[in-house]
């Protein structure tokens, strides 16, 4: 059932020309970045910046809007003997399949072709996880709010919070408590925000890490490189799974 449903949903999403337009714009951006950057490490930082900004926004908005626009047809489908579980799973699956496809075509493939250096792995692969995380967070917020405006507004708030507000709060913590030894607390705080997690762990593998001075040395010492990759992926995995499970349970108990 999940297979049939998601096949239908994916083909529905793929027919959407506006989405393809977005994919094209991503492609143009990443082409320009890869073409104009003087060396691949600078291209990596630019791609990272673009991913940090666009991927969460893109996945959060498209997921929320698509959820609300297909809400009624889903409710109709539920009148048939279809489990609620398979409906949520197939919505989520089809969203991440299509978004990952856009990400691959728009950013990953041009970057690999034009600047395929080893450390690009650390820039590109967590991007998929960012898509998984923010789709799942967005599905959760859409399940919680029945009202479309509220739901989308909350989704945008989540993006703003993780991309801007959280870092501003971190900055405040750093400047007000700069007399204390903040390293370990900051690492914990950064693990709580997937965007920061992605940013810091990618920077550790780029030349820029030298400029982070003893912070990066501290983090490399604390984690070791392989351990830091594993813990990043595990934490990001938690960010995918928990909102998704919560949204499954909420959807199962939801009264329409």
């Amino acid at each position: 059932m999940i297979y049939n449903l998601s096949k239908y949903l994916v083909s529905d999403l793929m027919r959407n020309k506006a989405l393809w337009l977005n994919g094209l714009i991503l492609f143009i951006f990443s082409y320009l970045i890869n073409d104009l950057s003087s060396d691949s490490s600078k291209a990596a930082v630019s791609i990272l910046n673009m991913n940090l900004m666009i991927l969460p926004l893109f996945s959060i908005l498209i997921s929320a809007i698509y959820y609300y626009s297909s809400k009624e047809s889903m409710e109709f489908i539920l009148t048939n003997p279809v489990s609620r579980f398979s409906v949520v799973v197939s919505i989520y699956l089809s969203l991440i399949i299509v978004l990952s496809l856009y990400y691959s075509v728009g950013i990953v493939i041009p970057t690999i072709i034009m600047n395929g250096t080893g450390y690009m792995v650390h820039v590109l692969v967590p991007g998929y996880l960012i898509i998984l995380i923010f789709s799942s967070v967005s599905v959760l917020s859409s399940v919680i709010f029945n009202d479309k405006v509220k739901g989308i507004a909350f989704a945008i708030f989540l993006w703003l919070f993780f991309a801007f507000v959280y870092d501003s709060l971190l900055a405040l913590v750093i400047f007000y408590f700069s007399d204390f030894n903040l390293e370990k607390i900051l690492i914990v705080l950064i693990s709580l925000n997937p965007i920061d997690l992605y940013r810091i762990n990618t920077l550790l593998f780029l030349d820029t890490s030298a400029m982070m001075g003893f912070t990066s040395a501290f983090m490399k010492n604390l984690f070791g490189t392989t351990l830091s990759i594993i813990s990043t992926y595990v934490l990001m995995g938690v960010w995918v799974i928990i909102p998704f499970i919560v949204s499954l349970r909420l959807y199962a108990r939801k009264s329409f």
Partner: protein
Amino acid sequence: MNCLKNLNGKKHTTIKYIRFVIIFCSLMLLLTVPDIVHSKTIAELIAQLKPHDTLIVPPGTYSENKIKISFPVTIIGNDYPVLDCENNGSGFLVESDSVTISGFVIRNTGLSYSEEICAIKVSNSKYVSITDNIILDTQFGIYFANTANSEIKRNKLISKPVSESSSGNGIHFWKCDSIVTSYNFIQGYRDGIYLEFVTNSSNEFNRSMHNLRYGLHFMFSNNNSYIRNVLTKNGAGVAVMYTNKVLVKDNYFGDNWGPASYGLLLKDINESTVTGNIFNRNTSGIYMESSNRNLITKNELLHNGWAIKILGSCYDNEITQNNFISNTFDVSTNSRKLVNNIDGNYWSSYDGFDLNGDGIGDIPHHPVKLFSYLVERSPEASFLMKSFIVNLLDFAETKFPSVSPVDFIDNYPFMEVIIK
């Protein structure tokens, strides 16, 4: 054997047979030559000399060490004879004026933690010339102690670095005066060129790279000049300390990249000139601490993490006519006061305009970004590197400066790259 077969295969072979015998005999003679040489060691050859004689050492391998030279003499290696110290100690120990050592390969001195083991050690001498030697796998390379009016030229020093504590310096000076060090190539030591209490010396056209710690390191060495050296890929770049009146001109400082690497670290350097240098891809191009009244001009600072880090303990430095191109941060400081002059540079990050067309921007440039200032104040802020909020704050700060050093501005920024 091929020769013989050919000879047998033809008639009238007598002449060819004689030719073969002659060639064979001369080959045998050639093979015996090294035996003749090895009958005497370099030390024995030197012992036969009178002061101011010249000795030409024949080619071959000499297994000796601690060869003392205690009277004026010129020793020249013919076709690079090898002095193999077999990990037992230093090579030449020069303790006399007017000694020349040239054209040797000196290798395998071994290492010691209690004394400085060097390929060539010169102490308490004048007019010494060390030229055209190749020095391989030694703890120290060339060591000058209390020596004056001497030169080290065209030597090649290559070692395999192990650790900072067990490696020595490539060229090491202690308490010297009027030394010329030029055209040397130094690789794989602790410090490439090290000077302590050295005055009136010039260091030119040297290449020092892949050293464990510093490419060039000097302390308490006044009135020296460093011209046209290439100092790249050293563990911590170049650090110079506690010195006045130095000329650093037309050097290349590149690829010193790491958490504790500096293109040129100036600590307690006063009244010196840094001009015409290229700083390319260093974590910090120039790092200045407690350095006063220096002139930093006509340098190219390209693709560095921080082009110049200038701490609040620096006064009255003149930083002018430099090109700051594609650095992540152009200037960083932890002080809010303007005590150094940074007028008249070119900044690739400058976004002003020039209405009257005189080549100088009409609005002043603030090279200190808020973020670099904050990182200088509290290093934990580097957790926020490349975050949007930082870019946003930086942007707001350039338009309405409130936190970063208000006075730290270039009033006359150039619109185009300054060409010398």
